[in-house]
């Protein structure tokens, strides 16, 4: 058990995969039996990762809790903590607090059409739910995934994308904002990919994750196509410092993104925006 609410437990890095020039995926495992048994993440939950001496930052867990005592986080080097994490090697320890926050409601997609829309580094949190559903084919026989990134080099999980592309139960569409030499796929915003699919939108359960501006336009598109507000599930991005509803940084109105979220339906986001008197996305 951690020393107090703010102190991490220590997990060991087993593998580091370079996804892009500035994104790495860290596979972690708990050295002790206690944490192995205690640490169960639901899809959409996050952890706070610590590099002692540098700081702490939140990351969505990128793997499903089906992997006992092991988990992945995918990290873009963008600030002090993430840059320090990119210096770490397999075998190093990383401070972890969590799992924190709520999770994606997967039950609403039962008997519906699960549609994932990811932008850039927004795919990792959705991957936890994708893995969860792939492991439950009887309940979720078919998934549609729309994924957009800035350039082909910025696509994460390139090997896994190939597997998904060949999986008959997955309908995968990828687009990049700017093409590169050798890229034969789509060029354009992720919202352009809606032209390639024809689901009955009144039966869609949409899960959207990405940068705030992308989330904003994807939600507008989904509403225009007729997806009900309560069936649009997204994550709100805020600076979650303590992760436990105390430091105040992620608050919107009287809600804390870290403890009341980070997952909200669009219906909830709208209510929250009214109550808070400010835009949430």
């Amino acid at each position, binding site marked *: 058990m951690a020393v107090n609410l703010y*102190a991490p437990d220590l997990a060991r890095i087993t593998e580091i995969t370079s996804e892009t020039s500035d994104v790495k995926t860290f596979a972690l495992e708990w050295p002790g039996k206690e944490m192995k048994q205690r640490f169960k993440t639901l899809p959409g939950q996050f952890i706070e990762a610590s590099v002692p001496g540098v700081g702490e930052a939140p990351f969505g867990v990128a793997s499903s809790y089906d992997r006992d005592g092991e988990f992945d986080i995918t990290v873009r080097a963008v600030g002090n903590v993430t840059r320090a994490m990119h210096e770490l090697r397999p075998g190093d320890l990383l401070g972890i607090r969590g799992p924190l926050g709520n999770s994606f409601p997967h039950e609403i997609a039962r008997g519906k059409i699960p549609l994932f829309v990811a932008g850039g580094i927004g795919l990792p949190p959705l991957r936890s739910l994708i893995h969860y559903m792939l492991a439950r084919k009887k309940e979720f026989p078919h998934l549609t995934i729309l994924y957009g990134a800035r350039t082909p080099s910025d696509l994460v999980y390139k090997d896994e994308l190939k597997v998904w592309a060949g999986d008959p139960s997955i309908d995968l569409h990828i687009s990049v904002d700017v093409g590169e030499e050798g890229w034969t796929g789509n060029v354009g915003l992720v919202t352009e990919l809606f032209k390639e699919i024809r689901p009955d939108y009144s039966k869609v359960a949409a899960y959207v994750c990405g940068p705030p501006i992308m989330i904003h336009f994807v939600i507008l598109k989904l509403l225009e196509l007729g997806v009900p507000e309560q069936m649009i599930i997204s994550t709100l991005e805020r600076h979650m410092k303590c992760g436990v509803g105390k*430091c105040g*940084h992620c608050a919107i109105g009287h809600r804390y993104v870290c*403890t009341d979220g980070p997952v909200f339906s669009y219906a909830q986001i709208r209510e929250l925006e009214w109550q808070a008197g400010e835009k949430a996305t």
Partner: protein
Amino acid sequence: MTAHVPRMIPKGRIDSFLESLGVPVAVPVALNGTGDIDFRIMEKPVAATAACAESYVNSAISPLKFAYPQTQVLWRFHTKPEIEVIPPAAPRELAIFGIRSCDVSAFRYLEHFFAREPKDDLFAATAAKILLISVTCQEPDENCFCVCCDGGPFLDRKFDVQLTDLGDSYLFEIGSAKGEAAAATGERFLEPAPDGAIRKKEELHEATLRKFVVTSHMATGIRKLTARKVPDALWRRMAARCSECGGCAFVCPMCTCFDVSDQRETADSGRRERCWDCCQYSGYSREASGYNPRDEKVSRFKRRFTHKLSYYYVQADGVHGCVGCGRCIQACFGKVDMPGVVNALRTETIV
């Protein structure tokens, strides 16, 4: 808890009573130069304790700083040969003598706030060791408005021990199990209260209520803000007066926001600590990516008063975010302090 028979303590025995508790005592002291009052920990109570408590209105900084310090170590670490997480020093016992009712009210709010799941065990452990011996106010400052906020000047509950100046003695009231234990420890310095002592206190309370200068129509402010009836132009005019100094947040006993940072002490050891933060700073909500959901000052200003006054918070916390201590009035040179803003929300004019 059972009702307590009111007691008295002669002023000359206060120091002995405090000493009998066997714990360090924080007392209000006048600072050299400014004359501001601040609470300082005395290993042994000083003779002037009682006199000092009588002669001051309130401290510049709330004594809640002992429960929720400006900077607090969350944990320590070594990084060699491998990372090791080390607990912070255990909190020690403390009695705060002379704390005012507004700060007692704020203390209970902080206990409530940090106890929400997941519970802040560090705060709980620190607060659990603190005994509040409050002295009711009979001479409110020109900035005080606790009377509008259910924050004081006298309390019926929330205190551990509440003292009321009745001349040569204090009325000694017990409000909690902690207060009960303190009374038992210092029993020999207490006397039974004479008949009429409670009535005398009530009379003093009534007389004090008539001395307040500032009034703040909190309920109207709450209603207008919650119903989104505040024009954007008014928010902008109020925000224009804010110089983002953070003073209001740092003197506010109800403010709880903190930043977290790591401090290295040697190449391979150090500490993680939290430090009070202020929602009016532009960097407060900014993310590593540079994205800032509140990059406009007006949105930060709105945020501050939404947190303090929105009914959704009142619903969740049972109280609004102000105890009427008046410190923000002194801190804010733009006059967008709590009563100033509530008045502007109400009348849509800025003084």
